[in-house]
Every structure is written in structure tokens, then in C-alpha cells.
């Protein structure tokens, strides 16, 4: 009975956020467009030579991914905070980290997953080879949920503040550095036709840790913000 209720809570919170995102489709589309525009800016700024682009592609794609994830993060808890839903989640008899986990996964479904799906297009734009393409997709698949988890900590800490957006980027971006390093290195390695399983494994390990630890940190951050 109790297990069933935990599941019911999780599904309900997840479904609500995804439904809301689909009702205002701009929430899903805008980060993707932002991603695309940032990527377009780089060839314009550094020159269109294919070799140069191939060399810089992993970094550009990942920096763009970091920035577009940040876009949706501010909204992650903002609406729930403003309308009081967050208080209702805290006053629920179920553990808050569980609802938080559902919300973070919903955020990933609506911002991270579309990026993963669009990754082949971005890789083509940046002149990446076929073998690097699969690495790009894989690193984004493991890396973007990690970005959502870490970013949600910053979002939880700043949700109570009037102008939390820029501050949140300031808090979160330094914490993104390991993800950036290992993900770009995996793509780099793969474009040299070398095995990049090691980098993926480290990203996976970080994701596993984040899955367990981040919801607890986010919950306590939210409790401070609601105060």
C-alpha cells in the first residue's frame, strides 16, 4: 500500500511538470533554439574552417548544453514556489527528496532529452565525424541529467530570492566543470578513434552519486527557501 503511494506521488509530480511544459511548448522549444543559436555563433566568430570546427566541436556543444540547461533551471521551482505548491509538497507525508527527484527528472525530460535527440544535428553542423557523433549522443545522455541534478541544487537555493537567476549561474557553473571536462574529453577521444569508455564510466559514476545525494541537498535547500 505504502509503496504504491510513493509511486503515485512520484508519477503525479513528474506528470504535472511534464504536462505543464507541454502546455507551454516554448519551455521545451526555447532552450533548443538557444542551443542552436549559440552553436551558430561559434563558426561566425572563429571562422568556418571544417578542421578548426571539428577540433572545437566538443567544447562548443557542451558549453552550449550547459548554458541552455541553465535557462530552464530558474523555472524549475519558481512557479511552485510562487503559487504555494512547494509548501504543499513539503507538508506532504511523503519524503521531499522523492518529489524533488521526480521534478528533476521532469526537467531533464523536457530540456535534456530533446538536446540528446537533437545532438546528431548539432554534431553535423560542427563537422563531427560519425564515431564522434555517437560519443556526443552518449555523453549528452549521461551528462544532461547530471546537469539537471547539480543545477537543481542552485535553483533550490535561489528560488526564494527576487533576482535569483544570475546568482544561480554563479553558484552552479563552477560545479559543472567536472562534467564538462569528462564529456568533452570523451568526444575528443572518440574522434581519434580511441576507446572512451573510461570517461563515460566516470560520468556514470558521478550521475549515480548525484542521483542519491542531490535530492537530499535540493530538499534542504528548498526548506530554507520556503522559510
Amino acid at each position, binding site marked *: 500500500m505504502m509503496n504504491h503511494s510513493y509511486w503515485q506521488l512520484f508519477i503525479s509530480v513528474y506528470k504535472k511538470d511534464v504536462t505543464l511544459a507541454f502546455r507551454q511548448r516554448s519551455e521545451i522549444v526555447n532552450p533548443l533554439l538557444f542551443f542552436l543559436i549559440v552553436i551558430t555563433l561559434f563558426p561566425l566568430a572563429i571562422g568556418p574552417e571544417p578542421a578548426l570546427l571539428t577540433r572545437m566541436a566538443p567544447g562548443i556543444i557542451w558549453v552550449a548544453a550547459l548554458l541552455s540547461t541553465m535557462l530552464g533551471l530558474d523555472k524549475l521551482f519558481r512557479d511552485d514556489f510562487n503559487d504555494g505548491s512547494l509548501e504543499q509538497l513539503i507538508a506532504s507525508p511523503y519524503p521531499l527528496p522523492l518529489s524533488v527527484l521526480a521534478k528533476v527528472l521532469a526537467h531533464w525530460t523536457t530540456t535534456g532529452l530533446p538536446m540528446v535527440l537533437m545532438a546528431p544535428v548539432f554534431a553535423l553542423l560542427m563537422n563531427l565525424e560519425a564515431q564522434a557523433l555517437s560519443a556526443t549522443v552518449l555523453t549528452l545522455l549521461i551528462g544532461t541529467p547530471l546537469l539537471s541534478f547539480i543545477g537543481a541544487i542552485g535553483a533550490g*537555493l*535561489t528560488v526564494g530570492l527576487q533576482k535569483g537567476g544570475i546568482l544561480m549561474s*554563479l553558484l552552479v557553473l563552477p*560545479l559543472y566543470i*567536472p562534467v564538462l571536462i*569528462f564529456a568533452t574529453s570523451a568526444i575528443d577521444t572518440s574522434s581519434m578513434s580511441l576507446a572512451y569508455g573510461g570517461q563515460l564510466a566516470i560520468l556514470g559514476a558521478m550521475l549515480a552519486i548525484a542521483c542519491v545525494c542531490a535530492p537530499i*541537498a535540493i530538499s534542504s*535547500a528548498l526548506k*530554507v527557501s520556503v522559510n
Partner: protein
Amino acid sequence: MWKWLHPYAKAERAYQLCNTLLPYFAVITLVCLVIGWVWGLAYAPADYQQKDSYRIIFIHVPSAILSMGAYSSMAIAAIIALVWQIRNAELAVISIAPVGAAMTAIALLTGAAWGKPMWGAWWVWDARLTSELILLFLYFGVLSLYHAFEDKKSAGRAACILAVVGVINLPIIHFSVEWWNTLHQGSTITKFDTSAIDPSMLWPLLINIVAFAGFVGLVTLIRLKNEIIQHEKHRPWVRELVGRGE
């Protein structure tokens, strides 16, 4: 949650403890700083390769060590504050943060000043420099989060959570930056090996490290005293203290 009934959880006792400790820290800092700097800057032998410019080590290394030491102590205070819900530990976090940030900034600036004659560039993307820079970002994060909150009670707890998240991430960041560095740069920069240092240079360095540690402790205690007074200014014991003109 089980509450740790430590006497220093009370603001007044913590304030008194600060007062008791202050003179010791002041004396240690002053004595070690004078001995360390005079010995290091004037009497220690010049390096056979770097000549006199190596002497910046007597500021650079202690500040770099203390930048990390301060972060760890800040994180420990943050964990104490969150687990046992002790307000004074929150205040300690806020007292340490700017001191640690200053140490990090000193380490970065002296590093740059040392790098110019040695490596020919103010800044190289060396693993240690990069880690140190990220550490500075983490300090800034804690500080700006604290100052963004109007309600200082929430501010303290938010800063504590961020400090703990930061300290969990710090080894991962450090490891990844180190790994990134070896991947991209190879060992173009000769590592400075502390164990190979001549005793005539090591002693002033150690004394300087103690001096810097004392300095960090001293400034933290003074700041902590101020924070306690600020937060407790409506309490009778503070009024009495102010009334006495102390």
C-alpha cells in the same frame, strides 16, 4: 534530531571563547609573521636558479595552503551547523568565507606575479592554478548567496548547504582538473617539490604557514565576534556589554 548540548552553542559562551582565544592567536600571528618574513625575505639563502624572486614562496605557499584549509574548516562548520542546528556554526561559516576568499586571491595574485618571470606568462592553465581559481568561484558563490538573502537566518543556512555541496565537489573538481591538465598540456611546468627544499628555506616557510594560519584564525575570530554581536544585539548580555563600553 538529537541535539548536541555543547556549551558553546550558546552565543554568549561562544563570544567569551572568542575573547579568550583572541590574544593567543594575535601573539602567534605577530611573532611568527615577523620571524617568518624577516628570516624568509632577508636571511634565507637565494635560490641558485630563481635567485631572489623565489622569495615570494613565503607568501604564496602559505596562502595557497590556507585557502584550502579555510575552505575545509568552513565546510566542517557548515556540517556542524546543519546537523546539530547550531547558529554559531553558521556564523562561523560566514566569518571564515571572506578570509578564505582573500587567501585564495592572494595565492592567485602571488602565483601570477611569480609565474611572469618564471614561466614568461602571468597566467597558465596549470592544474593547480585552475583549481585555485575554481576554489575562488566557490568562495564567491557562498558569499554572494549569503548576501543575496535579506533574512539572515535563511542566508546562513543556505550558505551552509552550498559550502557542504562545494566541499563534496571539491575533490571531484580537483581530480578532474588535474586529469584534464595532464591530458592537454603534458608536464611543461616543472613541479615545485616541497620535500626537496633546503632546510634553511623550509623553516621560514613552515613558520610563515603557522603565521598565516594564525592570521586566518585571528581575523575569523574577530569577524565571528562581530557577527555574534550583530545577531544578538537585542539580547540583554549584549546590551550590558555595549553599556560597559567594551
